[in-house]
């Protein structure tokens, strides 16, 4: 029977509350007697704290308490880092600075007051006596004998790592040609529209702490908070209400989350902290932050034979949850969509006097894709070949999967040529090139950029993850026939309340509005890992699917018993278990449901009537399972199943993006003429949601390519501390998207899905940069560093006059 919901652009069930303004984000939850917390944060990038005088603040109106680093030093455990790399240097990261501050925004004291205005007023009354210290802002300066940040790590190096397979020296020794390019990946601010926020309430009688936090990982956060605060994990409940975007910035455990929980325990009252945007840019993790040299060895026909990437990773002052792991993901994906026999990555990961970098949408993979795609463009330019042809030449063919890369991965499935063909066909590539030639003849600066990316999703097998790579689901049919899905994933805008309901409704043959998907409450949902790494559907959706199969196995046994038929003669279709047609006709029974389930108000639950029936709905079986009067022997009452899905591999979505831009000769302004994206994320549950993910990702790529950059000056001062200075793309900046898909199912999970959350931020950036570079090719330009601003282009155009 064809699916009724899966594969359809079903409107989101989460939307009504959101479009009416009735949803609840953390700051919308109001508990009586809530106190408000505001932080005093360092204005220096590197300084010794001589003293912190809080007396003025303590005496200020409305102030209830002030806590300094000294007050909490032995009360709360360190902010955790989950990355385990050989030889990794891990600084002791306390929730409040005590003796030294290491970056602008480093929290020094927490002020608790009766309202947020009073708390904010008191910040100005805290006197911190700083002794400023030499600052290391630049990552290469940090690595080459700059001022020491953490005294116990005098070389400022957190780790060095070399990885890759194949004989890299031979590849370069025997190459026809080589090219080398320095490439910058500037720091980016994730800028979820909802800043972070925490509300904590301790009930002294019950000894229970509830923490509402805008996070992507409620269960992992609960475990870490229990360790930091030193309380039993089963007395701690984390609730993620509505979360206003994350993009990796809320895949973390932050000092503020633990501190708020602890303060609530001290004061016996609810306490709330809502991050300001200024704090968000200064003290929520940044993404990217690499500078490296890419070297490519290749033959005269464009075949790439070796790739070497020497990279400095700017980790910031402290490790957040996954900080050190991010550059290693870059290393894993350096083969891109290509057969490259020898690859080597040499990572030097350094401390700097800045906020930590960590996972921002793509998390290390956009860096890899950008490096490889830029490299392929440089090869094409060097050989004067079309960049599409160079890519095609280096693809593994569709029958070479699973495909082993020289970075040690096994790509699950793929048809890279298929996606490229389709994108070139939609773009009418040959005509694009002809039009470009004509435009250039007129003096217009038109450029075409192409990216044939592959990404790593569905993170991931537990072997590759610091804290479990599985996901969980419980599916149960309530006595009234309503279906409840509890997922350990923690969606925050991706729409899995809808897409998981689509899976459940189809698999159970019920209506979509009979299914409710619950997530983000550790008091209600079984342990889960959370939403990041484009994993929620591929791993969490699979857990839902498999849990339903378990549930149906049980339901079928009950159905056979109730219908007095052998289980082998029972078939499930359209939400009903039926005795096979031939035997039912012989018995002369009816298949009409006798019991209407769960709609009209009823005084009591009716008992299923089975006499003369040849079929029963799964909802009737659920009721019978709950009443437990007519079950097969030794059957557990109730109809519910839980499954923890452990994937055997990652998934590897891929695609081709083609950008066409025109640069204004007079102003250097960049305008999109076309944007074609063909993405392959395996099977699609809800095409509308997939398009939304792709659009959003591409626009974040536009931001990276053309506008966004977290800038610190040499003194470590944050120059781009507001949205006035940190430029995000707006509606006027987007191209007219031409999206399409190919569909290569993943063999890693039974749904065949791969994940799509990060495709746009991984695939698009190189296409956009490639297009701008191509537009400037008449000026001899072969590479430009992001963000590419009109001023830089104007200078190039005008310097050649």
């Amino acid at each position, binding site marked *: 029977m064809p699916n009724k919901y899966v594969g359809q652009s079903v*409107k989101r069930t989460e939307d009504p509350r959101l479009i009416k303004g009735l949803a609840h984000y953390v*700051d919308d939850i*109001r508990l009586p007697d809530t106190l408000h917390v505001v932080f005093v944060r360092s204005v220096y990038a590197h300084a010794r704290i001589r003293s912190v005088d809080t007396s003025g603040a303590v005496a200020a109106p409305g102030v209830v308490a002030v806590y300094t680093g000294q007050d909490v030093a032995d009360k709360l455990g360190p902010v955790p880092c989950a990355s385990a790399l050989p030889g990794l240097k891990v600084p002791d990261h306390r929730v409040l600075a005590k003796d030294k501050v290491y970056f602008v925004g480093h929290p020094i004291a927490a002020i608790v007051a009766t309202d947020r205005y009073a708390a904010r007023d008191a910040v100005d009354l805290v006197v911190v006596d700083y002794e400023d210290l030499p600052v290391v802002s630049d990552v290469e300066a940090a690595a080459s004998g700059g001022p020491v940040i953490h005294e116990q790590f005098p070389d400022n190096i957190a780790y060095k790592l070399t990885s890759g397979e194949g004989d890299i020296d031979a590849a370069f020794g025997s190459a026809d040609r080589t090219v080398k390019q320095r490439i910058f990946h500037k720091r980016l601010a994730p800028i979820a529209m*909802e800043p972070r926020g925490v509300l904590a309430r301790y009930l002294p009688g019950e000894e229970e702490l509830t923490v509402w936090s805008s996070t992507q990982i409620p269960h992992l956060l609960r475990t870490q908070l229990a360790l930091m605060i030193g309380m039993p994990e089963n007395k701690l409940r984390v609730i993620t209400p509505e979360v206003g975007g994350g993009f990796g910035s809320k895949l973390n455990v932050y000092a503020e989350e633990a501190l708020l929980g602890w303060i609530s325990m001290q004061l016996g009252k609810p306490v709330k902290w809502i991050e300001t*945007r200024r704090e968000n840019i200064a003290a929520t993790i940044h993404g990217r932050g690499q500078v490296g040299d890419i070297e490519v060895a290749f033959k005269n026909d464009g075949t790439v034979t070796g790739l070497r990437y020497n990279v400095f990773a700017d980790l910031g002052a402290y490790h957040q949850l996954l900080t050190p792991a991010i550059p290693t993901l870059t290393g894993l994906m350096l083969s891109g969509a290509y057969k490259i026999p020898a690859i080597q990555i040499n990572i030097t990961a350094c401390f700097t006097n800045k906020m930590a970098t960590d996972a921002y949408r793509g998390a290390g993979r956009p860096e890899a894709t950008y490096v490889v795609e830029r490299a392929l463009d440089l090869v094409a330019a060097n050989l004067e070949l079309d960049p599409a042809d160079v890519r095609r030449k280096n693809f593994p063919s569709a029958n070479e999967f699973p495909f082993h890369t020289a970075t040690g991965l096994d790509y699950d499935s793929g048809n890279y040529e298929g996606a490229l063909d389709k994108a070139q066909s939609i773009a009418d590539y040959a005509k694009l090139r002809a039009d470009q030639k004509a435009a250039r003849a007129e003096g217009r600066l038109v450029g075409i950029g192409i990216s044939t990316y592959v990404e790593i999703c569905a993170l991931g097998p537990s072997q590759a993850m610091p804290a479990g790579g599985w996901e969980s689901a419980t599916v149960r049919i309530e006595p009234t026939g309503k279906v409840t899905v509890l997922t350990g994933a923690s969606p925050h805008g991706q729409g899995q309340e809808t897409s998981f309901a689509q899976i459940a409704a189809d698999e159970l043959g019920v209506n979509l509005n009979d299914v409710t998907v619950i997530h983000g409450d550790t008091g209600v949902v079984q342990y889960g890992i959370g939403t990041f790494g484009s994993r929620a559907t591929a791993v969490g959706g699979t857990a839902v699917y498999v849990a339903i199969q378990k549930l149906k196995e049980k339901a079928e046994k009950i159905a056979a018993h109730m219908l007095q038929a052998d289980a082998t003669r029972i078939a499930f279709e359209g939400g009903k278990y039926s005795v096979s047609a031939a035997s039912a006709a012989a018995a002369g029974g009816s298949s009409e449901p006798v019991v209407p389930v769960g709609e009209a108000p009823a005084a009591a639950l009716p008992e299923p009537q089975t006499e003369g029936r040849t079929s029963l709905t799964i909802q009737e079986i659920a009721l019978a399972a709950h009443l437990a009067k007519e079950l097969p022997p030794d059957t557990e009452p109730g109809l519910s199943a839980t499954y923890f899905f452990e994937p055997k591999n990652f998934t590897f979505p891929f695609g081709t993006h083609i950008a066409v831009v025109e640069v204004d000769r007079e102003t250097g302004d960049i305008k999109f003429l076309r944007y074609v994206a063909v993405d392959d994320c395996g099977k699609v549950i809800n095409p509308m949601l997939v398009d939304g993910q792709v659009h959003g990702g591409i626009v974040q790529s536009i931001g990276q390519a053309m506008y966004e950059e977290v800038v610190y000056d040499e003194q470590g001062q944050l120059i781009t501390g507001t949205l006035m200075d940190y430029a995000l793309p707006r509606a006027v900046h987007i191209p007219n998207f031409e999206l399409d898909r190919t569909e290569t199912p993943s063999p890693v999970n039974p749904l065949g899905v791969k994940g799509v959350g990060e495709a746009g931020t991984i695939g698009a950036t190189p296409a956009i940069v490639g297009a701008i570079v191509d537009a400037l090719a008449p000026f001899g330009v072969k590479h430009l560093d992001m963000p590419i601003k009109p001023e830089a282009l104007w200078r190039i155009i005008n310097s050649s006059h």
Partner: protein
Amino acid sequence: MKQAISLSVNGVTRTDEVEPRLLLVHYLRDVLGLTGTHVGCETSLCGACTIMLDGQAVKSCTMFAVQADASEVKTIEGFATNGDLHPVQEGFWEKHGLQCGYCTPGMIVAAAQLLERKTNPSREDICHGLDGNLCRCTGYQHIIEAVEYAAAKAK
């Protein structure tokens, strides 16, 4: 020194004593409990706090509550009437104009304003009308389509 204000919010008269420095957005959210209006930047750059004030879309994070004295305010909670969604709300639902939903109330208010000013907007008009509102999830494409849907619906 608190000051008395009286204003209409979503058709209901509200009278309160507020500190002169209380921001309008905090009055709406913390005093009236209308938490559909969000704070995203405190500097009027992101538009999450956009409301209608006397028929004009304004950013309530950079205005004091006392400045709204004697005004008519409409927040996102006032857009659906008798349970029927406003055409812009409907457009956002139909066209997947939202993901995390945080910017959505402000976007809807700004979109309603631009449609009041231009009933048959071009794509360029829509993008211009939404220039004061940031969205980090959708890439704007579906938001533009949502506004186009609402414009077509209103015809």
